[in-house]
């Protein structure tokens, strides 16, 4: 029924080819076809076409376009590229490190299996589940300069004399945005690390404890090496997601004040959909894509290694 070749292939992959090999492949391709069509039509083609747009001067809403070569790239290089790159890196670093530390601390604490930790874990998922727009509204209101609860608490505690304009001041706006984003993403990291902690062998921990290894020593000698895989993927995914995050920044500051929170995502969106300047947006997008592609390639390498194992 099966050819020698396909049997050999099956042996290698540990699976059978399910009956007649040729029509099996055809069937498999047929199954994948709708997904491939969706992927090509809605994601890949628009992405590549957007990149090609960087060579033209073109309006989002008016027909017609004019080939201008590398002019758009020159404009972007001489214009906003460096501040935008800097903002994106600051946002990405802050919004990865802070929620990671929060998520790790909570995962370690909740892993102690104290009474009520399951309920707490469920409740702590909320910031991540609710729509990002709701998280943005919430922090917009908390950071509100006139009536916000943060200023209320700080003034009442005597830390501040009068309310600070958190989101309206270029020196604090980025920090405020990072805090809001960290709030929205720490639960995911917490859950992933909690799942990772289940793979730490309990008897190994017990043995180390009995041998007199302290909590910190045990964390670095046993817990961390077992978490390495999960930590790598969580950090990498957070970096990639933060690198193109849009929602919370857009609602909280729209990229302001004075461009201090304008990241790639905000800049490209604003240039294209508020300024209708497709060419400049696409040129900025090319730089964005180059960095993102490098990150994604690293991610795929890591995933592939996990798959082969």
């Amino acid at each position, binding site marked *: 029924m099966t050819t020698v070749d396909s049997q050999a292939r099956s042996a290698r992959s540990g699976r059978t080819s399910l009956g007649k090999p040729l029509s099996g492949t055809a069937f498999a391709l047929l199954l994948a076809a709708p997904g491939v069509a969706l992927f090509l039509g809605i994601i890949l083609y628009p992405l590549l076409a957007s990149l090609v747009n960087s060579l033209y001067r073109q309006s989002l809403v008016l027909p017609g376009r004019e080939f201008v070569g590398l002019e758009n790239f020159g404009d972007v290089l001489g214009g906003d590229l460096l501040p935008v790159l800097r903002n994106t890196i600051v946002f990405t670093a802050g919004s990865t490190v802070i929620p990671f530390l929060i998520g790790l601390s909570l995962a370690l604490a909740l892993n102690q299996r104290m009474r009520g930790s399951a309920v707490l874990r469920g409740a702590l998922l909320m910031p991540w589940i609710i729509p990002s727009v709701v998280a943005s509204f919430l922090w917009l209101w908390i950071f509100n300069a006139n009536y916000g609860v943060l200023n209320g608490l700080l003034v009442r505690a005597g830390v501040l004399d009068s309310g600070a304009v958190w989101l309206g001041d270029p020196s604090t706006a980025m920090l405020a945005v990072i805090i809001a984003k960290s*709030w929205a993403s720490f639960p995911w990291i917490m859950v992933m690390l909690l799942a990772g902690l289940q793979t730490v062998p309990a008897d190994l921990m017990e043995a180390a404890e009995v041998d*007199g290894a302290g909590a910190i020593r045990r964390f670095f000698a046993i817990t961390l090496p077992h978490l390495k895989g999960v930590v790598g993927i969580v950090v990498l995914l957070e970096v990639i997601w933060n690198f193109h995050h849009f929602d919370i920044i857009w609602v909280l500051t729209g990229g302001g004040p004075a461009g201090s929170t304008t990241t790639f995502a905000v800049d490209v969106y604003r240039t294209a959909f508020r300024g209708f300047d497709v060419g400049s947006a696409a040129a900025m997008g090319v730089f964005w894509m180059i960095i993102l592609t490098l990150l994604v390639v690293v991610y795929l390498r890591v995933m592939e290694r996990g798959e082969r194992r």
Partner: protein
Amino acid sequence: MTSAADVGVRDTRAARDVREAHASPDPAARHGRRRRRDQRRQRLAAWAAIIVLGLFGLFPIYWMLVTALTPNELAFQFPPQLVPSEPTLSHFVDFFDDPTLLRFLFNSALVATLTAVLTLAVATLMGYSFSKFRYRGRASLMYLVLSSQMFPHALLLITLFMMYSSLGLLYTYAGVVLSFSAFTLPLCVWIMKSFFDTVPDSLLEAGALDGAPRWRILISIVLPLAKPGLLAAGLFAFVRGWNDFIFALTLAGPEKMTLPPGLVNTYLGEFQTSWPALMAASLVVSLPVVVVFISLQRYLVGGMVAGSVRE
């Protein structure tokens, strides 16, 4: 080592007291004491982390609830009241009296449901293909699809917007659902694939030997076994569609807009945002996804972990 473990575990208070009274030089006893002190310290650290970070995580949610219950006159007060003195449900009543907001709510429900159905259908077929068949290009295709969830939305929206407008898909439900589905697909394919991976091949072979056609094996043998996966993937797609902002903001238009961008357009940009009304509306948008998630946590967390980290 074994004896020390026994002492540590079975140590009784009385035994410890006796040993301490005699200032026993027994190293096992010293070990036991140190271990207990260590454990106490560890618990203390755990509680400190939980209280401080838990407050950071949950206070904003509490604040959303408090503000939504506060009458307008009291909301614009500095410093704000941490416990509402005169709670009111009027902001919720107002939400359900507003025809524009109700239309957004209807759009959200419709679009998220259609997204879940379409994504589930496409992701099931694709996940099955990736899991149970081996063909040239399969691995490349898998990683291409996986990587697509990392493409920058803002960038490809530019062409998508122009493409939709020339195809007549701009400002239609179909256009919005297609874009949601495409972006939810990678995660759902991954979830379905990892569930199909757990279905033993021998079951499929048995079906094939009985002469069942291929599609029948999928429908009557494999799908019933992958029910938790279907549930997880379907809910994920629903939640993604429900929560999405940037695609609905750009592609839906004023009539077909879902709640997240609808609320931004309704409340922000006014001279004075009505915060209690906005917080009430935020609770209304959040409630369905929170209820779904908390009640089905078991499936979703499993699916989520399977979807992101290959075990």
